[in-house]
């Protein structure tokens, strides 16, 4: 096993890089910052890979079960003998898997950005933000304490805010970053209250103790179940509130509104934060507390399940109508995360029941690969075309062969076509859903088909659709594009690596390593079962092919025939408008304005009144303090005479 300092170095390297770049590098060697960041990320990744190898193959197992290992624990704030905020590292299958994913994707993004961000004015700043984000994310997944995870959770939010608003001279980017921050911050309020509820009853903030106390019949469990508020037990409330935090970060319906707008950030950032790592933090959080959800509180898990499946379906429908390539990908991310969520929701704890849990983690793993690939591919396309709109693209397959091929692989993977990675994880999820709830299964299969459709809508629109010369430009412009070239080599290499991974990670026997209780879960593969989903996905692909392979009027006619639905989906089911209505019309008018009135007139009024009275009084009596010695002497003399009279005639 690696020594503790080396494990601690995995998150610490990025933060050191961040400090170095932000404090020194930005000023003295800005052009080297990218290489510096990438190298430190490479070291971090290698360390993570070593840790993963050691954990999964050498030391993690005791008997047949993967243990939770805490190589580092530092008591930071001690409140009482039992309650403390620790800073520690917790290694268990999911956290090890996550550090691998985070460092890998982050490395790819760092490397890719060398080409993508080249020549940008704030190149060094960009890399410092990336390093900060990677640090926060690694800290989040390694947290051994629920409060520690909250701290890193917020750090992740901040770095996401910084990166979305990276192009701060664009008003839309500024608005998007604020929106993302406020929406997730709002959800985090739920998370914080959830933490307080759980830790109040369990009497600890430490994950292991917390889970132990709330899953075995202890006093703490009895009190928290007995304590009820508005018809639900405190445990249910706590877990649902924590899930709200997770749903905010993971862009679950109805807190998803920030994710599409977050695409204003640089594309590699979208790949890293808004596809592969940060947005799965919510899934990770539920998975981290999964024993409590599954063993002690099935109602909370029901919430997770229905929120997951509805987000998944709604996002898939919206994705079919969007015309901005990154927004399509954003909604597909939301849809896939919905998959992971409801997979957790249908899962039970331990043994065969834990299939959903394992499937969810598996999908998280594969999704990180192919979604990062999709975004990086989209980045390459945007780099080439200088536009986000699908209609500006088309016929790019000969011009960008590498991007074309890798994008195709990613699309196949996300559509769930064997033998690509997405197929395996999606099948596990569908199987788990099938065993638990037929309705969920049905919606999930339909969603899978829609997923295939909109991904290939994107694929065909970008790479086929139009004749080879993009935008129908003249011959000269065409030549110019050729000179411009597909993408620099630094952008192609990550695409190729991720494409290879998207092909083969599905073959990993994931259940052997990650399962709800640590014991290996051997999954059988039912060929018969996967026929229907694959056929539906293929149908989706062919439908997309017939619509978008050549320029045709069919899609427009189709949209016309379902006008209301199309319009609604195109406008994201008006959820943004509903939010605006609620906040602007209802909350601002009914709560905000009265509160402002009270603040202005009652609170400030009291203060102003005091000030006015003091001022008036002092103005009135300032004549007394004339500064004239002789009038003072008169006062003094009159006073003395007064005293004398009092003492002589009245006091006696």
């Amino acid at each position: 096993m690696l020594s503790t300092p080396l494990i601690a170095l995995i998150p610490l390297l990025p933060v050191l890089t961040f400090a170095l770049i932000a404090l020194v590098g930005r000023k003295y060697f800005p052009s080297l910052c990218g290489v510096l960041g990438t190298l430190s990320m490479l070291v971090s990744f290698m360390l993570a890979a070593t840790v993963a190898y050691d954990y999964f193959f050498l030391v993690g197992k005791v008997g047949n079960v993967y243990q939770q290992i805490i190589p580092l624990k530092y008591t930071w704030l001690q409140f009482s003998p039992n309650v403390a905020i620790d800073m520690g590292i917790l290694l268990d299958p999911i956290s090890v898997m996550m550090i691998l994913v985070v460092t890998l994707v982050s490395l790819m993004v760092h490397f890719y950005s060398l080409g993508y961000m080249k020549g940008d004015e704030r190149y060094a700043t960009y890399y410092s933000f990336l390093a900060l984000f990677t640090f926060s994310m690694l800290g989040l997944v390694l947290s051994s304490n629920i409060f520690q995870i909250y701290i890193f959770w917020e750090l992740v939010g901040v770095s996401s805010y910084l990166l979305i608003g990276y192009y701060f001279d664009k008003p839309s980017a500024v608005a998007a970053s604020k929106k993302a921050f406020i929406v997730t911050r709002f959800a985090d309020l739920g998370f914080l209250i959830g933490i307080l509820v759980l830790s109040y009853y369990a009497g600890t903030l430490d994950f292991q103790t917390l889970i132990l106390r709330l899953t075995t019949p202890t006093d703490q469990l009895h009190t928290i179940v007995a304590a009820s508020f508005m018809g639900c037990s405190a445990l249910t409330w706590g877990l649902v509130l924590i899930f709200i935090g997770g749903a905010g970060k993971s862009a679950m319906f109805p807190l998803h509104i920030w994710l599409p707008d977050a695409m204003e950030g640089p594309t590699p950032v979208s790949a890293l934060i808004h596809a592969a790592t940060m947005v799965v933090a919510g899934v990770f959080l539920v998975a981290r507390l999964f024993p409590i959800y599954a063993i002690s509180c099935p109602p909370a898990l029901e919430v997770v399940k229905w929120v997951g499946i509805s987000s998944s379906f709604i996002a898939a429908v919206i994705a079919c109508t969007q015309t901005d390539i990154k927004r399509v990908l954003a909604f597909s991310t939301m849809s896939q995360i919905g998959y992971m969520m409801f997979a957790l929701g249908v899962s039970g704890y331990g043994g065969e029941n834990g299939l959903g849990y394992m499937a969810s983690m598996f999908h998280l793993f594969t999704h990180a690969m192919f979604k990062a690939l999709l975004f990086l591919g989209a980045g390459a396309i945007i780099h080439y075309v200088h536009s986000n709109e699908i209609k500006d693209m088309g016929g790019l397959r000969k011009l960008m062969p590498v991007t074309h091929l890798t994008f195709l692989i990613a699309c196949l993977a996300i559509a769930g076509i064997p033998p690509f990675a997405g197929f395996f994880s999606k099948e596990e999820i569908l199987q788990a859903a099938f065993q638990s709830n037929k309705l969920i299964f049905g919606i999930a299969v339909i969603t899978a088909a829609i997923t295939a459709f909109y991904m290939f809508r994107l694929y065909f629109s970008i790479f086929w659709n139009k004749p080879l010369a993009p935008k129908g430009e003249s011959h000269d412009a065409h030549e110019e594009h050729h000179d411009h070239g597909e993408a620099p080599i630094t952008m192609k290499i990550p695409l190729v690596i991720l494409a290879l991974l998207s092909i083969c990670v599905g073959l990993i026997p994931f259940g052997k390593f990650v399962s709800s209780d640590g014991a290996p879960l051997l999954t059988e593969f039912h060929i018969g079962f996967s026929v229907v989903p694959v056929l539906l996905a293929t149908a989706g692909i062919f439908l997309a092919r017939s619509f978008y392979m050549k320029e045709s009027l069919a899609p427009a006619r189709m949209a016309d025939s379902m006008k209301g639905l199309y319009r609604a989906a195109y406008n994201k089911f008006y959820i943004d408008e509903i939010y605006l209505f609620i906040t602007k019309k209802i909350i601002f008018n009914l709560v905000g304005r009265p509160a402002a009135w009270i603040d202005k007139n009652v609170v400030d009024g009291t203060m102003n009144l005091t000030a006015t009275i003091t001022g008036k009084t002092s103005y009135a009596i300032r004549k007394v303090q004339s500064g004239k010695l002789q009038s003072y002497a008169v006062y003094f003399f009159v006073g003395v005479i007064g005293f004398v009279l009092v003492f002589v005639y009245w006091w006696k």
Partner: protein
Amino acid sequence: MIGLTHYLFVSCALFFIGIYGFLTRRNLITMLMSIELILNSVNINFIAFNKFLFADKLDGLFFTIFIITIAAAEAAVAIAIIINLYRNHHTIDVEEVNAMKF
């Protein structure tokens, strides 16, 4: 026969003349002189009481000597201040010395 009452009458008259002068005069030196009058009225008081009520003791006498000493020092200080004031403001009118007033 001159008794205690006569002394007190003189002292009282001196005191109020001093007070009147202090309150009505605008000239600093006149005010200083008025203060001296007040002090001296007190001195007379002390001596008179000492002589008529506690003839075997010397407390009042000592007090008076102290007051005379201190009054001399005080007059020196006050006149020094007044001279400085005159140098800076070319006046010793108490009404016009208002440079520090808000």
